[in-house]
């Protein structure tokens, strides 16, 4: 193992080297810096780096802490004190976070080093990271394709060995879908399990922070550090947090997995379907019982989501008014012009569309028909899951109906982009937890495109789906595959 190869390690393997004092935390930062310099020019995963501060922190790192000396990338929508937090938006281009989000405080307490901020769709609104006002992020497996979104920078960085692990946020699939499209593990905790304090709010009843990692074990270790009640977040759950890493295992005896029949829709790429079919057989051979279940209100999920998420966004993004922080239009004649032009010049098209839609569904005369009705259908969707979980321990499906699509392919048609999240959105509406793990590849023009398998679990049952995901992962080799951008540079 030369220092050049360090960035290819999982967090767990990195920690073995650190704890045996075979490598220092400072050397890890230097190796990571070199790796990012080598690949990120083309990849475009990072919006900002603070490697000098990271190096100083590494000098005093206590590697025996749960994440001691482990550098982690952070989606640029989570406040890290002193670093930018652009949310991928021009409106926050020059903003510097004056405080640490709760998850960052917790990561620091566990010894981790948050060294850089990753690209995202503007305010996490999107499924391809193409809505970033800052830069383009490419899929490490095929630079002509999207990394998924909205946590596309985090997913691409981890996949390309330009991060050991990362935080993302998931409002309708924004951790799981880019994880699937970029070939890494992405974990969305139960709503309320992880504090949202310091996460810039998109849709407050749906947003949840979670890890993107190379392995399920790494996701569990990060969850151990960030989960737990926070008085600063009134929606944070005051529940006991188990040791997620301690419960990992290798077999699936006695596990009942539900296959939602409504998820077997037309429009699933045949290569995705084939990979899921193989994964189901592997799960069975490991002892799992596969049971068909029904989620009868599935077809409504995307519609409910785009009413509730935009309604909440229209309220949350009202704070960007050009007064207290962020961009302000020049020389406004009065307050109305200050607001109108600041938001015209500061927001990108997708954010404008969603704020307008959200304002409309909350407006007088339309509230009952859209917002209230959507809230009721949301409850039906939640009940669907509760009923299914009476029969099974977890649900299994593709994470995305298609592998990574081409850059530019879906940007002209927002509705088509929204349908990329068809399998992930319902979990946010129901508040349950979910994970995406690599389960195969689709071949396309000489490129291998990763496919993700999604497992959904009961509220607060994170330990169980991590356990199932890890058993599957450890009995397959998909997580060991590296994209061309990784192997090419390692050899050089």
């Amino acid at each position: 193992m030369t220092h050049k190869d360090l960035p290819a390690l999982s967090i767990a393997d990195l920690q073995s080297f650190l704890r045996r004092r075979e490598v220092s935390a400072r050397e890890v930062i230097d190796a990571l810096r070199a790796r990012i310099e080598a690949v990120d020019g083309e990849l475009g995963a990072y919006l900002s780096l603070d490697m000098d501060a990271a190096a100083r922190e590494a000098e005093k790192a206590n590697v025996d802490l749960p994440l001691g000396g482990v550098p982690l990338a952070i989606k640029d929508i989570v406040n890290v004190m002193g670093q930018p937090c652009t949310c991928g938006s021009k409106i926050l281009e020059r903003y510097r976070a004056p405080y640490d989000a709760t998850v960052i405080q917790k990561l620091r307490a566990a010894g981790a080093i948050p060294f850089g901020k990753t690209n995202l769709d503007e305010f996490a609104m999107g499924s391809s990271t193409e809505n970033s006002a800052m830069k383009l992020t490419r899929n490490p497996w095929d630079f002509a394709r999207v990394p998924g979104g909205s946590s596309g920078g985090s997913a691409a960085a981890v996949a390309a060995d330009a991060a050991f692990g990362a935080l993302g946020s998931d409002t309708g699939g924004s951790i799981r879908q880019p994880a699937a499209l970029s070939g890494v593990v992405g974990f969305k905790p139960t709503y309320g399990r992880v504090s949202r304090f310091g996460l810039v709010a998109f849709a407050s009843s749906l947003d949840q922070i979670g890890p993107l990692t190379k392995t399920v074990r790494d996701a569990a270790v990060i969850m151990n550090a960030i989960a737990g009640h926070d008085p600063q977040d009134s929606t944070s759950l005051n529940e006991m947090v188990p040791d997620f890493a301690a419960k990992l295992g290798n077999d699936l005896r006695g596990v009942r997995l539900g296959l939602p029949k409504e998820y077997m829709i037309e429009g699933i790429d045949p290569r995705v379907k084939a990979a899921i079919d193989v994964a189901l057989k592997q799960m069975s051979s490991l002892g799992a019982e596969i049971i068909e279940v029904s989620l009868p209100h599935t077809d409504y999920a995307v519609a409910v989501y785009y009413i509730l998420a935009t309604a909440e966004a229209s309220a949350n993004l009202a704070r960007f008014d050009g007064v207290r922080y962020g961009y302000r239009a020049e020389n406004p004649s009065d307050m109305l012009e200050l607001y109108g032009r600041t938001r015209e010049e500061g927001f990108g098209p997708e954010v404008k569309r969603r704020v307008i839609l959200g304002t409309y569904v909350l407006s007088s005369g339309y509230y009952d028909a859209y917002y209230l009705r959507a809230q009721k259908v949301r409850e039906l969707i939640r009940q669907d899951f509760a009923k299914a979980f009476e029969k099974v321990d977890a649900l299994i499906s593709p994470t995305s109906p298609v592998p990574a699509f081409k850059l530019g392919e879906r940007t002209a048609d927002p509705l088509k982009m929204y349908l990329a999240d068809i399998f992930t959105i319902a979990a946010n509406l129901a508040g349950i937890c979910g994970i995406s793990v690599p389960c195969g590849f689709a071949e396309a023009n000489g490129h291998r495109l990763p496919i993700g398998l999604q497992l959904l679990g009961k509220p607060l049952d994170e330990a169980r789906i991590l356990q199932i995901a890890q058993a599957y992962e450890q009995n397959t080799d998909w997580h060991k595959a590296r994209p061309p951008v990784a192997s090419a540079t390692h050899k050089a």
Partner: protein
Amino acid sequence: MAGTSELDVGYVARLARINLTEDEKNAFQKQLDDVLKYVEKLRQADVSHVEAAAHALPIFNVFREDAASEWFTAEEALSNAPRKANDLFIVPKVVE
């Protein structure tokens, strides 16, 4: 500007305090008409016996002690202000 839905993008954009160009107005009208047409499927759902869910989990009335605690200083709170002076945010004149 009439689209296929009742949404008037120009009017709602004013409510949302977002100025739009004519090109944006036209593009958004068409795109949001498509989205509103898509969400019409919610009319088919039977919601007659359902309570609206603002949140997925039953969390209500979270209170804390009404006690002062340390938070931003004025300087920190103003650290990202586009215009400031004398520990205050500066905005265009509001009253004549």
